[in-house]
């Protein structure tokens, strides 16, 4: 009970108060303390990577051992991890050899596998956005109508073809498409964002105070 509950609470309190005060102390010792604790965080994250890797390898190995449907993909995970690790060690962590013109094996994996894969996944966003807007951007009520109109105007003003269409159809109006888009982004959009950010900021302070003072202990798990 003491170790599982009171020690973590004491650590949270001490560290919380120390680093709240640290912000107001310009002395180099204060900045040194911040840098040191950030280094500790990196070290802890490094060790916790082992935990994560063990969990990942464990669950996939269980799938391979049990021969569950799709166990072949778990083998691919192992091949990917071990293969990239081997290639990275052989290339000494460098993407380019010499003066930066020749790709190492790691650089080849990066350029021909990671970059296209990440780009492909990110590009799915365009398709999902199209299907999401088709499904939900319907003027069911006033709020939905406002959202739809704002999105319409912003998208129109964002691209050269949209500006061209605006000039042809609504060119008689004084503001141009990009000016309307700029106004929507800089005025009502900014106001809403600032409002949300103000609330989020206060919420963060309150949540942090709750954790520092031990009022909120749910994140500790057992021992309630």
């Amino acid at each position: 009970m003491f170790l599982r509950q009171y020690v973590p609470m004491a650590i949270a309190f001490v560290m919380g108060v120390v680093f709240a005060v640290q912000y107001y102390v310009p002395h180099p010792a204060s900045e040194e303390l911040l840098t040191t604790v950030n280094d500790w965080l990196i070290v802890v994250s490094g060790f916790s990577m082992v935990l994560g890797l063990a969990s990942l390898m464990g669950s996939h190995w269980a799938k391979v051992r049990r021969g569950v449907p799709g166990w072949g993909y778990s083998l691919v995970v192992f091949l990917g991890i071990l293969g990239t690790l081997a290639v990275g060690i052989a290339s000494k962590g460098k993407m380019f050899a010499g003066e930066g013109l020749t790709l190492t094996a790691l650089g080849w994996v990066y350029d021909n596998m990671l970059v296209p894969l990440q780009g492909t996944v990110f590009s799915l966003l365009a398709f999902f956005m199209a299907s999401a807007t088709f499904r939900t951007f319907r003027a069911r009520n006033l709020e939905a109508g406002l959202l739809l109109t704002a999105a319409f105007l912003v998208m129109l003003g964002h691209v050269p073809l949209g500006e061209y269409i605006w000039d042809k159809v609504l060119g008689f109006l004084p503001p141009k498409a990009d000016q309307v888009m700029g106004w929507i982004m800089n005025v009502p959009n900014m106001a809403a964002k600032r409002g949300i950010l103000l609330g989020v900021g206060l919420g963060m302070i309150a949540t942090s105070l709750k954790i520092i003072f031990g009022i909120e202990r749910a994140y500790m798990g057992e021992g309630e």
Partner: protein
Amino acid sequence: MRKLAEKILSMDRRAIYLLMASAALLPFLTGPLGLPSRVSPEVKAVYDRIESLPEGSPFLISMDFDPASKPELYPMAEALVRHAFRKNLRVIGMNLWVTGSGMAEKILSDVAEEYGKKYGRDYVYLGWAPGATNVILGLGQDIYKTYPRDYYGNETSGMPVLEGVRTLKDIPFMVDLAAGDPGIETWVVYGKAKSMAGGCTAVIAPGMYAFLNSGQLVGLIGGMRGAAEYEALLKEMGKATVGMDIQSTTHVLILGLILLSNFAFFATRRRR
């Protein structure tokens, strides 16, 4: 009419995906649309700031993005580095995202080769170091302690390109190109650069306007459009300008789909 409206409303999402793919491929078939992007004040502000730097000034560019954000931020980085080399500035490259190291290195070496710039004298690539916040804090205290060696293992102290540069305060202007966190907000909070601008993906650009309006950012290049505007200022047609054609066709398709779905929605609603 009602049946048609209901069919439209229940359109298979795969049909929408097919339409999107067609819209994206259309510019490759028709050729460039040739429509110019109007330059926004926040992009012009970045351009003007670099233009105002005297020759030989150090210029820091932190390329904090991964391959997923390459379409938006790679052309932006290329355009900025081109501008810096054109102005004969001393370019200091680095990144806070480990997966972006390869791209950052490629941008600097490719553009440097174009302009005949020499490594170590005209530009340096510091590479990636762990602990984003620590790296920025460290740069604020001593660049050589934070990066004792560059990406290639060369000692940074004594490098001609870093002469007179000890901390971020010795760098008159820097740009952070970010796809998320760590990114522009991290630099604004922890960095103490004399003057800073940001470049980011279109989706997080609206959130960065708060820093622009408060003066913490001198300018902001948002998304591929921002990159295309910067290329227009440099009077060069790069990847961003080409990409805007695809954005144009896909945006107009989405607008068309929105109009279609609302038309169908109201057609069925009236009947009810």
